[in-house]
């Protein structure tokens, strides 16, 4: 990762005008002048975000055939389809920066691209579907609500659309958890166990503390990010703890307590070594996720081939008719 946010090669006048626009709260559009570094940072961030949506389909896709009722199954299918849509919105936004989606997809399939570390954890029980909707989508909403005000127009607009849809994801997840938490002792144990596994990884989704995040300062300066990782994490904890309390779930953190002065739920130390291991590719499911993604891509080859062949045939037919 290049950590040198140098913009010395840019035309100082253009750069000053660009930064003035950002400071004035204007949104930057694809054809506007932007520093190469801004383009690069956005491409990195948006493509990782798009990949996360695509890989995010896999842990939940695993449970579609095992959903406990038709109602749950319909919701889960709709949610997984939404994630595909979200991936496509953001790939489309990334393409406005001058990259090809094809290259991004290639980078994901051959393992060069990063995506959210949370999807490298296994989904072991049905309760995981609830906890993922509630915590993982809940964390994503906190993050994306702020990204919806990002300085890059296409990214911000994709986020507005995604946030609307993810509210359904979160609510269906919380409903699953609330039903299980009020169910039999076995169901209650199942949802508590799932919560225990996903709580800390969900906090890690916001990324390392800003003091340790190489990209934060620059992204904040250019208003790609509007809040620090730590601020967003705190917001998520403050929102989620009362929701857990309401359905009788215990947060697996002995240090968790409400700070009466700030109104913040103070939480314990995050195990960052785990985060970096998962990021490096050593999480429980990194390999399995990429294999599943590659298989899905390969299995879809005939559909793409058929669509191309059909388009060519139609084209040939219409040009013969015209002749």
């Amino acid at each position, binding site marked *: 990762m290049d950590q040198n946010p140098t913009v010395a090669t840019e035309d100082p006048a253009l750069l000053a005008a660009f930064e003035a626009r950002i400071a004035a709260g204007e949104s930057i559009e694809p054809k*506007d002048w932007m520093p190469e570094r801004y383009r690069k940072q956005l491409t990195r961030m948006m493509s990782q975000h798009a990949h996360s949506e695509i890989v995010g389909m896999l842990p939940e896709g695993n449970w579609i055939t095992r959903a406990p009722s038709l109602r749950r199954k319909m919701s889960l299918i709709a949610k997984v*389809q939404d994630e595909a849509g979200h991936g496509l919105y953001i790939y489309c936004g990334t*393409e406005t920066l001058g990259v*090809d989606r*094809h290259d991004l997809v290639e980078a994901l399939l051959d393992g060069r691209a990063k995506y959210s570390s949370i999807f490298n954890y296994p989904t072991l029980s049905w309760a995981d579907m609830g906890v993922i909707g509630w915590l993982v989508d809940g964390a994503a909403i906190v993050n994306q609500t702020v990204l919806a005000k990002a300085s890059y127009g296409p990214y911000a607009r994709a986020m507005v659309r995604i946030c609307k849809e993810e509210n359904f994801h979160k609510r269906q997840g919380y409903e699953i958890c609330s039903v299980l938490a009020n169910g039999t002792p076995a169901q209650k144990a199942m949802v508590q166990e799932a919560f225990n596994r996903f709580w800390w990884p969900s906090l890690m989704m916001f990324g390392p503390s800003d003091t340790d995040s190489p990209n934060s300062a620059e992204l904040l300066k250019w208003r790609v990010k509007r809040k620090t990782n730590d601020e967003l994490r705190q917001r998520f904890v403050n929102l989620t703890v009362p929701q857990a309390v309401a359905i009788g779930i215990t947060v697996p953190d002995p240090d968790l307590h409400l700070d009466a002065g700030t109104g913040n739920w103070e939480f314990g130390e995050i195990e960052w070594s785990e985060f970096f291991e998962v990021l490096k590719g050593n999480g429980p499911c990194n390999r399995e996720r990429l294999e599943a993604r590659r298989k899905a891509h390969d299995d879809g080859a005939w559909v793409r*081939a058929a669509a191309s062949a*059909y*388009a060519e045939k139609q084209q040939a037919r219409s040009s013969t008719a015209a002749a």
Partner: protein
Amino acid sequence: MADSQWPLWEVFTQPNKGEPFEHAGSVHAPDGELALQNARDVYARRGEAVNLWVVPSTAIVASAPSDAGPFFDPGNDKPYRHPQFYIAPRGVRVF
């Protein structure tokens, strides 16, 4: 050709009958018919549109943001095109 990325189409949605079409995003598709179907699946899963347009991205001609000043200038210096430019007697309801 299996991994071809296909041409890019810009998608416009009409949220309700009688309203203007708005740009929603883009899709890749081998032809217009599939572009419409992909656009429906990506941009209209919750009744966001009653009609869709898909347009090959290459067909769009756009103004350059850097020329926005001079390009739109003729419109900016003609306040007499706005009703507020004109003085009406006090107490008369003009609008």
